[in-house]
Every structure is written in C-alpha cells, then in structure tokens.
C-alpha cells in the first residue's frame, strides 16, 4: 500500500487575531508549518505530500518549502473555502497510485515523527488519534440542555490515516448533502460506517487556534528541545 499525505494549511487564521496566517507564525524561531513538514521529510514511506494553502499564500508556502529544502515530494495546491473543501482538494491532488492518505493540520506543529510512523505501522486502514477529555462537558448554550458522559467521548486529534478512495467517496457524499464536518473521522464514519481505530494521542500535540495556544506551544516546544529555563 502506498501512502501520501495532505497537510491542511488552508486557513487564513482569523481566530488567532494576527494579520499573518497562523501556519506562518514562528514557533521557536521557525514557521509553524515547517515544524510539521520537517518531521514528514524524515519518513520516506510518505511518498507524496500535498500542502493546501490559500491562493494568496501559495507562493509564500512554496518559497518556504524551497528555503527549507524539503524536496520534490512536497508540493502546494490552492485549498478550498472550508476545511472540508481543502481536504477534498488535497485528497484529489495526491498522486494516482496513493492508496492511504494521512491527513494533518499545519497548525499542529508539535506532532512527532513517531506519531506519523505509528499511523503507518498500524495495520488498520482507518486510524486516528484520540485523548481522553479531562474536563466536564455539557450540552447547551445559554442554559444547560443535557448531559454528556465524558467517559464515552474522545478528544479527536490529527494526524489521521484513511483509505484514500473510501474517504474521497465519503467526501463526495457529504458534498452532495451539503454537510460540513470539522474533521475527517466524523465525516468518514458518518458516510461509510466502517470502523475507525483510535490510537492513544498525545497531550503535547495541541492545535494552535487562539493566541494563548502559541504561548502554550512555545512552552511545550522549549521543554521538548531541552531549552526550558525554569
């Protein structure tokens, strides 16, 4: 089975509150997206890497790939208007012979090379990472409307691995229905009903969404590379 990868770098990043898309913000002096791509570079089994990005940042992303000498496996395509659309376009852009697709987000820079390797080495075709939810969650907006059992829930993380053809079919079905999902395990499960294996994820593999996340990520990164000062 041949493996490819879609790296979602398509968001403009409005929620982070800064003019630069968050995948270009620096973490430990290096663009966030490069933290991800450098780890992928180390894994030869990932034969084709498609980075989706906004049209306005296509050139900048290509330049980063060139500056960091990531090699010919890495290429950029323009993403879509939504995360789901970007994933779909990335999946379509992968090379013809790619059977398994790993999906990752550019804004999860603290992913490890081992996280990718474990996905590849797990024999199941559809595999995600998940971690327990350590806090209480309830249904509701202004008022409590219902209870949820956190023991039955999982905090879904990326990267994830799927049978590429089946995931594309699921995407097409979701597009036909006009339904948007926030990640692909939900979409895949909804439209295929096929089993999706959950591997234990990592507390450090956080997603950078709001400004506080960058502060947390800097602290985690400093710890990971042995530069913690306290």
């Amino acid at each position, binding site marked *: 089975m041949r493996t490819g990868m879609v790296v979602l770098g398509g968001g403009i990043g409005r929620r982070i509150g800064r003019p630069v898309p968050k995948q270009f913000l620096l973490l*430990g*002096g*290096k663009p966030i997206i490069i933290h991800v791509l*450098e780890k992928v*570079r*180390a894994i030869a089994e990932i034969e084709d890497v498609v980075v989706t990005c906004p049209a306005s940042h296509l050139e900048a992303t290509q330049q980063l790939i060139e*500056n*960091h*000498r990531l090699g010919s496996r890495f290429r950029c395509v323009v993403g879509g208007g939504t995360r789901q659309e970007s994933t779909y376009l990335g999946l379509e852009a992968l090379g013809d012979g790619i059977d398994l697709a790993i999906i990752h987000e550019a804004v999860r820079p603290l992913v490890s090379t081992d996280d990718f390797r474990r996905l590849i080495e797990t024999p199941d075709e559809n595999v995600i990472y998940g971690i327990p939810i350590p806090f209480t969650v309830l249904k509701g907006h202004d008022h409590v409307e219902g209870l949820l059992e956190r023991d039955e829930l999982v905090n879904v993380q990326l990267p994830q691995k799927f049978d590429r053809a089946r995931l594309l079919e699921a995407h097409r079905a979701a597009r036909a229905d006009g339904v948007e999902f926030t990640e692909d395990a939900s979409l895949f499960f909804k439209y295929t009903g096929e089993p999706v294996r959950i591997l234990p994820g990592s507390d450090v593999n956080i997603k950078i969404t709001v400004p506080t996340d960058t502060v947390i990520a800097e602290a985690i*990164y400093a710890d*990971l*590379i*042995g*530069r913690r000062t306290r």
Partner: protein
Amino acid sequence: MGKVCVITGASQGIGRAAAIEMSKREDVDVVVLIARSADGLAGTVSAMGDRAKIHQLPYDLSDLDGIPSLVEDICREHGGIDLLLNVAGYADPRSLLDTTADNLVQTFTINVFAMLILIREMARFSDGRPAKILNVASTAGITPRPGWVAYAASKAAVVSLSATLAEELAGSGIKIYTISPGRTATELRRKLAPDEDPTSIMQPEQVARVIRTLLSDDELTLDGQNIIVRQQL
C-alpha cells in the same frame, strides 16, 4: 564514515591552529580550509600532517553571493558538513570620527554577514544530520574597546546571533558554540594592539585546544553560551 570539518580563516592564527588540531582527531576524515590567501592555506596544510584529507578553498568571504554555492559544492563533494568553525575575522581599528562606512561594512561583512550566511546554508543542507558549529567572537564583543568600534560591535553581533541561532536550531540536531577569546597572539591582534609583545599573551594553539574539546562528541552541555577563553596569568 568520518566527519567533515570546515574552517574559515584557516590561513593563519586561530584558524590555522584549529585546522592543525582538528586534523589530529581520529573521527575527522576531511578538513576543508577556507581563506582568501592561497599561500596562507598552503602554509596551514604544510603544518597539518597527512592523516585527514585536506581540501583547500581559497575564497574571499566578502563575496556573500557566492557563499551558497560554496557550501553546496562542499556538501556535494563530501556528503555534508559535520563541523563548521567560523574563525575568519577582519579588523581595521579606528576611532569613531575616523571610521568610514566602508570600514563598518567590510568589518560586518566578514565578521557577521558571511558567518550568518554560512550557517544558514549549512543548516539548509543539513537534512537533519547532527552537526556542531563554533563561532569565534571576542572579549571585545562584551566589554568596551575605545577605538575598535566596528570590530567590537561586530563581535557583539556574533555573540548575539550565536545565542539566537542556538535556540532556533536547538531542535534540528545542530549545536552552536561561541567562544570569546581574550588577547591572542594573531595577525589580527597585531593590528589591534601593535605594540604588544605576542609572547606575553595567549597563543592560538591554546584556543584551538578549547575548540577541539568543545567540538568533541562528548561535549553536549556548553552550546548556546558565550564561553570566555582567557589565559589566566
């Protein structure tokens, strides 16, 4: 497979002494010597012995545009760089009112800009290969030196850029070391202090032994710091 060691400023002084010292290391197979002076490089080679393969590269580091292809050529020929010693230095001491723009630019070009570009290109071609870089700053970069404004400021920049890059490259497998030698009997020192008796101060060989220690595989804790190297009298 032995290590590839690249040394700038290898035609004299600390660079030459470091080349001789590094060529004695059993784990270094290739020593690439860079300096403007081909004659100076030849003098270094004649003092190095024949254990390691020596590659002489006469090159003027003030040509910043040529540095990327210089590094690429080295990496292509030798498979990469394991140890980079940025020793090349320039000094033309002048008082503030006598300092020219050319003096400032030339000093910073050799002492700072060329060093930065060499490091950038090495990092670009490292492909995750573990490596060590050693930058030679100076005690002039951390204490006032009236009359040496360009040189002292450039060495302060070396201390700063080294500390910054040690952090930035910390996760890449590349360690950055900085040494700030005090008074050392080199040609450059003769420009800065022409009346000084060179036999009364630290010798380049003493600094080279410190460099060899820092660049050994056993040394894993002193990167990212500005290490003062002084002869205690």
